[in-house]
């Protein structure tokens, strides 16, 4: 047997003795030693003269990293890359970001603390300790208190350590050896296979339950409903159509039927319900340029852009056209006239009235009175006498 000595352990019966033993061990100058007890003993860290753990720094650094990352993520997504107004708040709405920042800070700090503890302080992947499975460990985790002085200490001398520990009046002394081979090697094929199997099974089960199991009967998530989609046949109605026509006289929401539809020379027309406000005229201009200007020209002169492919319409500035009432122009747009088709389905009611107002502006501009010029001069601040 060629065992390597890990250290020499001494067992005690009371917490007071272990505190005294820890103090004496420090005084004797040993540095590589440890104390074990079944429960936390108050004051032991002071007796052992332990320095505060360095783990807190890992927590601090990763906590601050978490805050910075969370803020950066929200700043980038919410204020730079895809700015969105939510609840009327600014793009960089700091108060709303603080709870998230707090959560990410705590998350990263705790994860880093646990992982840091395992890697730096438990020396991962080392997963065995010579004290594991010893009689000593069984006792100190039940009703004894123990101190171990390790062989790696620079003052270690077997006989001296034995002498020193005996002077503390322990109930027993014990030599602890390294186990001959690592008990649980991390890279053993069996263990690695076990890890791979666990990973595959876990992810497989997760995938299956989230993507398949949840969509089996009876979990239909309302995807199957006793209703008919458009164009589907029906067995309920005699004609076999799933889509039904509305009841006679049904009017669509927001739609007012035009009463003089189909009359070429109506005796009555509608009154213009819209005032030529700035917004109304802007709308009228936009719609006129889209729908009317290809034939009637940008200014209503009848100069078609269609190069003879379609007959040119008459000018909108003729005295006949100028004497039309607003309602009559509206009627022509809605109903069509001669070869001009009806625009009722392309242009909404409000837009048609806006076009009427805009045409009135075009007509007035071509046939301006001198009083109009005074108004324009006054508004534009142009004082050129004329």
């Amino acid at each position, binding site marked *: 047997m060629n065992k390597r000595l890990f250290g020499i352990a001494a067992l005690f019966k009371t917490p*007071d003795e272990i*505190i005294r033993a820890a103090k004496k061990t420090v005084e004797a100058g040993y540095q590589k030693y440890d104390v074990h007890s079944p429960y936390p003993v*108050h*004051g032991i860290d*002071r*007796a052992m003269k332990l320095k*505060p753990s360095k783990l*807190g720094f890992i927590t*601090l650094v990763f906590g601050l990293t978490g805050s910075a990352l969370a803020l950066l993520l929200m700043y980038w997504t919410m204020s730079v890359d895809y700015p969105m107004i939510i*609840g*009327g*708040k600014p793009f960089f709405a700091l*108060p*709303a970001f*603080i*709870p998230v920042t707090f959560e990410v800070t705590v998350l990263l700090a705790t994860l880093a603390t646990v992982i840091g503890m395992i890697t730096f302080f438990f020396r991962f992947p080392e997963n065995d300790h010579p004290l594991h499975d010893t009689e000593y460990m069984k006792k100190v985790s039940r009703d004894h208190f123990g101190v171990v002085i390790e062989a790696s200490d620079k003052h270690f001398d077997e006989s001296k350590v034995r002498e020193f520990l005996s002077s503390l009046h322990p109930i027993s002394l014990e030599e602890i050896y390294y186990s001959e081979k690592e008990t649980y090697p991390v890279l053993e094929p069996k263990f690695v296979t076990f890890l791979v199997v666990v990973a595959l099974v876990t992810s497989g089960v997760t995938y299956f339950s989230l993507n398949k199991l949840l969509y089996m009967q009876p979990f239909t998530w309302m995807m199957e409903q006793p209703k008919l989609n458009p164009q589907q046949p029906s067995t309920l109605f005699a004609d076999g159509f799933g889509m039904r026509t509305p009841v006679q006289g049904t009017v669509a929401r927001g739609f007012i039927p035009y009463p003089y539809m189909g009359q070429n020379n109506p005796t009555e027309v509608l009154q213009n319900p819209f005032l030529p406000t700035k917004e109304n005229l802007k709308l009228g201009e936009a719609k006129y340029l889209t729908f009317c200007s290809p034939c009637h020209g940008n200014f209503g002169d009848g100069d078609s852009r269609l190069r003879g492919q379609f007959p040119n319409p008459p000018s909108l500035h003729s005295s006949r056209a100028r004497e039309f009432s607003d309602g009559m122009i509206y009627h022509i747009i809605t109903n069509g006239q001669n070869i001009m088709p009806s625009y009722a389905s392309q242009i909404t009611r409000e837009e048609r009235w806006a076009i009427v107002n805009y045409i009135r502006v075009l007509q007035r501009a071509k046939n301006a009175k001198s009083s109009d010029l005074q108004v324009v001069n006054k508004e534009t601040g142009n004082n050129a006498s004329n």
Partner: protein
Amino acid sequence: MHQTDFKYQRKDLPAGFSKFGFAFLLIGLILAVAAFFVDQSRAAFNYLVIYMMIVSIALGSLFLIALEYVAGADWSTPFRRIPEFFAGLIPVLFVLVIPLLLLNHDLFHWAHEEAVKQDKILEGKAPYLNLSFFVIRTLVFIAIWVLFYFLLTRNSRKQDTTKDQTLTSKNIRFSAAFIPLFAITITFTAVDWLMSLEPHWFSTIFGVYYFSGTVIAALAAVTLVVVVLKEKGYFNPWITDDHLYSFGALLFAFVNFWAYIAFSQFMLIWYADLPEETFWYLTRWEGSWVIFSLLLIVIHFVVPYAMLLSQPAKMNPKRLKFISIWLLFAHLFDLFWLIMPNMQPLKKGYVFSWIDLVFPILGIGIVLTIFNFIAKKENLIPVGDPKLKRGINFHL
């Protein structure tokens, strides 16, 4: 390790306590009276700030005593006398509140009957916010506090000579009765004296907000006195690093608690963005008040948080002394920020006046004088308390 040899010898408090206390009281009183003649309204608001500060320290101390009994804590037993002396300010509140009740017209908009008649909302709140009910409430609350102050401290003092352990169990029962009453009375006190300064505004978390500041103020005051007395040899060797660490940890916890509550109140109002709630914060964003609002975050949270974060900092006596003075100032600053913007001439922004500096002097004078007056007659350590030995042998 265990210190079983405990011999307590009574020593008078350092002479500085009475000298400084008396000097501050005298100077503060003269200047305060002068301030009332110069600008009655501003003096009234300033006096309210220090009145609430004294309520914080006194009532918070009584809460700490009750907490020790209810929780069965023994670490705080060796210096429980310090909060008991601070709680001695409670009976004085009966006197201190009189000027405020007389000046209700300067302080409270709802105390103006003609203004209430023109205001639907104030009319609706009148069954609660009216002068007679307000005065009754205030006096009843102070009476409740005084009652429990006498019950708890009388038993504690009797124990010094009789060493009767049943007095501790009696006090535990009194404390258990006091804590719910404390929760109710402090909430209504905060609503009455702080929130009703702006009678149109409401916030349901406001009582908790004041409570968090109260505990910080009382803890900081107790910490300050314990550290100062320990440095002068009064508590040696009974107060160890472990006790100091507990002070630091509790202060740190309540600094976080205050920030949590203050932010919760702010974020909900900011997010909902309802004009009947936001105007209170907008007043504190007006003109130079914005500097106060931003400084409040730094003074009341950022600085104490950073200074108390590490473990050694929590048990360093010098650091604790500095941070407890800092936190006392922070709570005063918090109260100033809560109260002063409600003053009509200051609504558009803060304008400096010497009156603002006078009243803290008066406040320090009152607290020190009363503390010294009570401490002179009593033991500094509850020598008859059954928990004392465990408290002295306290280890983390």
